[in-house]
């Protein structure tokens, strides 16, 4: 189960519709209907995108009396410290994993034979 913020945030941001939704929410909270309005797709399709953003923790859905709305969440963007943080995180993982893998290779583990 992928729960690290880097992967989920990258995945959520990989889609232009989702980036547009985030940009709209940066202007302030709004309803799903209003979020869907500028996009040439069904409300259900937009809801799916919203769900992906919600799962990545980038937005939250809330209810205020009779009004349901979406708003931007600070958490994951803060966690990954923007692009540099995400990129650096990727390479930190890569180099850690390479270090471990080089040790495997030198031990001659079956899995690492060329």
């Amino acid at each position, binding site marked *: *189960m*992928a*729960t*690290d913020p*880097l*992967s*989920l945030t*990258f*995945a959520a*941001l*990989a*889609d*232009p519709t989702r*980036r*547009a939704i*985030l*940009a*709209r929410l*940066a*202007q302030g909270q709004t309803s799903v209907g209003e979020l869907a309005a*500028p996009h040439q797709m069904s409300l259900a399709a937009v809801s799916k995108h919203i769900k*992906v953003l919600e*799962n990545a923790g980038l937005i939250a859905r809330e209810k205020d009396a009779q009004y349901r709305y979406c708003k*931007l969440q*600070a958490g994951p*963007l*803060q966690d*990954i*410290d*923007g*692009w*540099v943080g*995400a*990129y*650096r995180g*990727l*390479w*930190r*993982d*890569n*180099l*850690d*994993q*390479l*270090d*471990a*893998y*080089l*040790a495997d*290779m*030198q031990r001659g583990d079956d*899995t*690492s034979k*060329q």
Partner: protein
Amino acid sequence: MNKMLVETPEGEPVIRMSRTFDAPRTLVWRAWTRPEHVARWWGSRAMGAIKVVKLDVRPGGEWRFEQITPDGTVFAFIGKYIEVDEPERLVNTFALEGMFEDKTVIETHRFEERDGKTHYSGVTRFDSIEDRDGMVASGMEAGAQESMNQLEELLGELVSA
């Protein structure tokens, strides 16, 4: 102690990384340039293994590594090799398909052997310091420039909070 060192210099659009591996340089080069090895260490483990779709290590050759998220989205890290000087130096572009593709990110990897260990240093160069520091925000394809600015401002606040 055997940790990666990272520098993000003030006046230059680069990130510098370095690390020492307890392995000879030829082995590090092989692990870095052959698909069956790359698949074993490259990418976020939490996402599961990456798929090395393309790894053509020669000047002009392309690379492409794919990762599939739990909701089925495929995202691909892609790039092209610019310089290949085995076993010492490798220069390639780095991009995330569909995001920031108009931006140029160039990675220079250097491998030096000292006493049987390999000292790795990587320099990643961005188009500008703004790109280096604000790529997530600047990659947003929002309708209005104003909302992008607001988002950038917000991200800036979040990062410095």
